[in-house]
């Protein structure tokens, strides 16, 4: 007569999880002056915000590891974040099988156990992905306001340059709150 046995297998999964996310968009930079001059002015404003030159671009990395890369000539901004973690899990899986099918049962249990641990690793990856998205969303809120102000100041500076090229500036007023610039020029 056939007997039932309890079998046990130990499965483990190790995964190095790397998740990355990011976006790329344009800055609305009016060409008040030729593009290369606008790029220089924008670069100067961005340096005040902690950006550092890296080739043709400017770069800044936040405390949470968010990388912001701006190309002032193309007026594009790239925001990205990469995070990694190690996932490790080991567990015993038990099942009851009939004597005649012990080996098949063991093999099936190994597959089932491994699949369960892989699903846990997938869930850990999804959680990390979710965290990355949340960090980026938070940072984008502040970044957009920051970049809008930098672009406004750049355009303001460009307008002053342009006005000086046209004639003698007789009056210049700037509203810090609204960013409005009023320039009177004697031609």
């Amino acid at each position, binding site marked *: 007569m056939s007997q039932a046995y309890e079998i046990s297998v130990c499965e483990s999964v190790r995964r190095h999880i790397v998740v990355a*996310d*990011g*976006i*790329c*968009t*344009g800055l*609305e930079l009016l060409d008040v002056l030729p593009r290369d001059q606008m790029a220089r002015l924008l670069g100067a404003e961005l340096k005040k915000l902690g950006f550092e030159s890296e080739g043709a671009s400017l770069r800044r990395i936040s405390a949470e590891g968010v990388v912001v890369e701006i190309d002032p000539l193309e007026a594009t*901004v790239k925001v990205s974040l990469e995070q990694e973690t190690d996932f490790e899990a080991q567990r015993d899986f038990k099942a009851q099988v009939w004597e005649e099918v012990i080996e098949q049962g063991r093999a099936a249990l190994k597959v089932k156990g491994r699949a369960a641990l892989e699903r846990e690793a997938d869930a850990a990856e*999804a959680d990390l*992905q*979710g965290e*990355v*998205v*949340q960090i*980026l*969303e*938070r940072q*984008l*809120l502040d*970044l*957009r306001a920051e*970049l809008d102000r930098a672009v406004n100041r750049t355009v303001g500076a460009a307008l002053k340059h342009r006005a000086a090229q046209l004639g003698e500036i007789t009056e210049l007023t700037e509203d810090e709150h609204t960013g409005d610039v009023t320039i009177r020029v004697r031609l």
Partner: protein
Amino acid sequence: MIHRVARSERALLQVTEAVVGLIEPVQALPSLGSKAPEGGRKIGPTAMALLQSTLRRGVVRALAHANGGRQSRSLHDPPAAAQPPWQAPPELTFTERSFELLCWLAWSPAASIHQSGHPASDGDQVLEYLASCLLDRLDRPLPKAFQDNALCWLAVPHRMPRGAQPAEANWTRWLSGQGATLLTALQPRLAKELVRIERRKAATKAVGSMLLYRGHREALDHYLTAADASGRRDLAQCVVEAGAKVLAPRPSPDWWIGQLAFSGTQLADRQEAFKAAASLLSAVARVGGWQKEHGLTRFFDEQYDAAQLLLAQWESFGHAGFELASERLRALDGLHLLEG
């Protein structure tokens, strides 16, 4: 006169009638996937004559229907009033390619289409385009070969195989000769299809589904580039007409993306989804740039007449319409929609 044909041939003819719009698509449903004739893809002379007649009549009728009875000025060379298709029916030819397509639809739509590799004629391409619209209405996938058909990219981009990209070269045939005549006649129909696509996008809930429209923005961009390069900016009529219809109620950016469920979606995919949502807006904004140029064209410039024609043609949409498109595009392409 009564014609006798085999059951399999009747299915083929019925599917053809549905493709060219002589009957409703739902009437052809029972014929899709019918039993193929024994001995392969062969039909008798009666069925062949009927098939040829159906194609000739049906495609011209479809073009006339697409044209909506309009007689409008175009930049067609010679610059005369474009003749509607029923007054000067185009001489369309259909090759073995069309026959293979119709056989596939009628007898083995579940299998991959086998095409002999014949270069497609204008007639073949128009038939493929009409077939793609039928397959879309019946919620059926498109054959891979349709990705080389520029018209299909405009009308049913969401049905294109994953990873497929529209090619600018595919527009070459539509910007001169008979192709240009056909494309001019199709403008009202293409406009309706572009509006239908926008309404589908507005109802899209899954980010993955919105991403299916990624290729549409590129396809419209290629279309406008090709039209511009060929001196046929008037072929942006379908874009302006669709834009006017969609933007008439001044929808907010939320109209396009408000239904999307973002939970668990990467920002990169979200941004791609917003860009896909803005495909028509991007095209309308580009045409808006052209319209500004038209307004600055001086009377002694070579393009003055063309510029005046287009200024008049798109006057009702106007500067306000184009500006609205640009504004909505900036919102969908910008950062703030991505913020938490």
